[in-house]
């Protein structure tokens, strides 16, 4: 249970692609490859190259190559590298077809042309799959996961109750400005963005186990798909509750992505750690703890940009 459940976050696991296509193409490769190796003669007749002794050696070789693509795609679950290997194979096949077509006339030429058209169609599918797999790979690379815990000297029920009221979240999740509960499951979140701008999205609670666990995720259309789960486990030795949080979010690429990354700080782990400390402070002491050097309470940014430890001028007081 160390990761956010795959079911919880399909768009995080694979934000941009349909995982079915590369895998389906893998099975197609396996079928074609097996056919080419086991039934070289019939295939040669079907495609109109049964007149060439060269083709009789080439077809099993192409089949073996297809088996390679197929195994790679199926076993890797549709990895981008294997998808691109199919595109390369398609290029070779199309070249072979073009030469076979030029050398033939009549019925055989028609059959070669037909096969070539089918291969071209498959090439298009392969390209879509390969580009998709590459994008997904990059998005996975950008995805940030944080998995942290804090011990709070309150019962699991008290900790759960505070977190479950999602409108409390901005009191300790420092990047949030406001959360509005629309109903028991759905809510609208507003985060502080760069240059005073806001990032907004809708979220829903997807799993709610009173006093034990809450899981939520952003709804489709969020600029930054994100999800999380928090568990409330009694701490051993009657020391309150272990609050364990798993968060994942996938910032988009490009400029927006960089802005989002900045928003979460250089060290997202540290930020979440500080957020959990705020949660602990609010539950145990009733408020976020403030000092003259850190008047807004705990945060990475504030730790770097400390004010001198002297009372704030009247104009800066909250």
């Amino acid at each position, binding site marked *: 249970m160390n990761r956010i459940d795959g079911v919880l976050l399909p768009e995080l696991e694979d934000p941009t692609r349909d995982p079915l296509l590369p895998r389906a193409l893998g099975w197609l490769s396996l079928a074609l490859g097996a056919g080419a190796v086991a039934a070289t003669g019939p295939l040669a007749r079907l495609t109109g190259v049964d007149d060439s002794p060269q083709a009789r050696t080439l077809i099993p070789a192409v089949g073996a190559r297809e088996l390679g693509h197929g195994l790679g795609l199926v076993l890797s679950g549709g990895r981008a590298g294997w998808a691109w290997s199919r595109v390369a194979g398609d290029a070779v096949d199309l070249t072979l077809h073009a030469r076979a077509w030029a050398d033939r006339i009549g019925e055989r030429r028609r059959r070669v042309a037909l096969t070539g058209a089918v291969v071209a169609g498959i090439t298009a599918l392969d390209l879509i799959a390969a580009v998709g797999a590459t994008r997904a790979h990059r998005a996975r690379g950008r995805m940030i996961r944080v998995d942290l815990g804090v011990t709070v000297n309150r019962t699991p029920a008290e900790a759960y109750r505070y977190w479950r009221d999602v409108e409390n979240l901005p009191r300790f999740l420092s990047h949030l400005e406001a959360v509005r509960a629309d109903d028991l499951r759905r809510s609208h979140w507003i985060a502080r963005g760069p240059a005073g701008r806001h990032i907004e999205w809708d979220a829903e609670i997807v799993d709610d186990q009173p006093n034990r666990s809450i899981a939520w995720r952003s709804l489709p259309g969020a600029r930054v798909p994100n999800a999380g789960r928090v568990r409330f486990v009694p701490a051993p030795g009657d020391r309150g509750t272990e609050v364990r949080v798993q968060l994942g979010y996938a910032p988009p690429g490009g400029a927006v992505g960089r802005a989002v990354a900045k928003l979460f700080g250089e060290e997202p782990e540290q930020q979440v750690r500080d957020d959990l400390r705020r949660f602990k402070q609010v539950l145990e002491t*009733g408020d976020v703890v403030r000092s003259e*050097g850190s008047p807004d309470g705990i945060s990475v940014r504030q*730790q770097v940009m*400390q004010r001198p430890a002297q009372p*704030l001028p*009247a104009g800066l007081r909250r």
Partner: protein
Amino acid sequence: MKATAWMGKDKVKVIDVPEPSIMNPRDAIVRITTTAICGSDLHLYHGYIPAMRKGDILGHEFMGEVVEVGPQVRNLRPGDRVVVPFPIACGHCNSCQRGLFSVCENSNPNAGVAEKIMGHSPAGIFGYSHLLGGYAGGQAEYARVPFADVGPVKVPDEVPDDQAVMLADVLPTGYMGAEMCDIKPGHVVAIWGAGPVGLLAAASARLLGAERVFVIDRYPYRLRLAREHVGAETINYEDTDVLDALNELTAGRGPDACVDAVGLEGHHGNAAIYAYDRAKQAVRAETERPFALRQAILACRSGGVVSVVGAYGGMVDKFPMGAFMNRSLIMRAGQCHVQRYTRPLLERIQRGEIDPSFIVSHRMPLKDAPKGYKIFQKKQDECSKVLLSV
């Protein structure tokens, strides 16, 4: 208001700053009547504690009159005379509830940085660097006191400021240093350092039933205080080999418990050894000069306790781990959990069992704080403790 601010290494200044205001509902504002310069303020003064900023208000030993309370402070009201413990503690986390107030889990808003250096963060402390919270200190006319429903203790009128202000730090710290020794009848306790904490540790050790108390220092006037006010026996390490003397005095056993009331800026009788650690400290190859700690470990009776209340900030070098391990020593340490001791010690003062004010050598107005730092640092004019009146 006027406040004593750290302005850089060996430099403090009384400056004008805004008056404090309530920032959390459990805050109180205290108008300070008496505040003190602590030996550990000298570590800040000398620039040995990291994360100080120019303009930081110093001071963690102070008392005064409550002038304003936040909406959640119900135990205090304006006009109450209180003394304020130096560690800031929330009273509700696991550590506080076990009495470990100086490692309060909530009171350091800069805990993330402290964690990187110390593994976990200790409590915030008034006027003691941004590593420990960035709280404005109490060598000022007013101070904001967070968690005022937990820390400050009301002081009856018959207990004068000179005695009561000692409850903020030095008396509880000395007392905890002695308490950690686990003193049994017949026990011999040796204490390194005859500053305020060492002297009050010696007085507390006697109070807790130690048979004999030895105090080790190099300033004759401080050793005289130990003899005259505590009834301790004294060793001047400048003219005596401490290990030989302690072995001699205990017939070869060694003291049952040793208290390090010196900390990170120790001195050593041997100029070469002093120079070695001083040089390493200067280039930050180590951050402390742990002479007292090393000697305390070597001196201690096998199976005895080494109690550390002197302040350390970072890494020590040449720690005699072989002696420590092979001779089954026990080390106890900590910033004092002051909130645990204030009331019982106030009662002891009221019953006349202990009068901590014997350590006070100088009283001066707040505006003379820079002079106070200087004479305390240079040990001029037999300076043992400086109180600032506001």
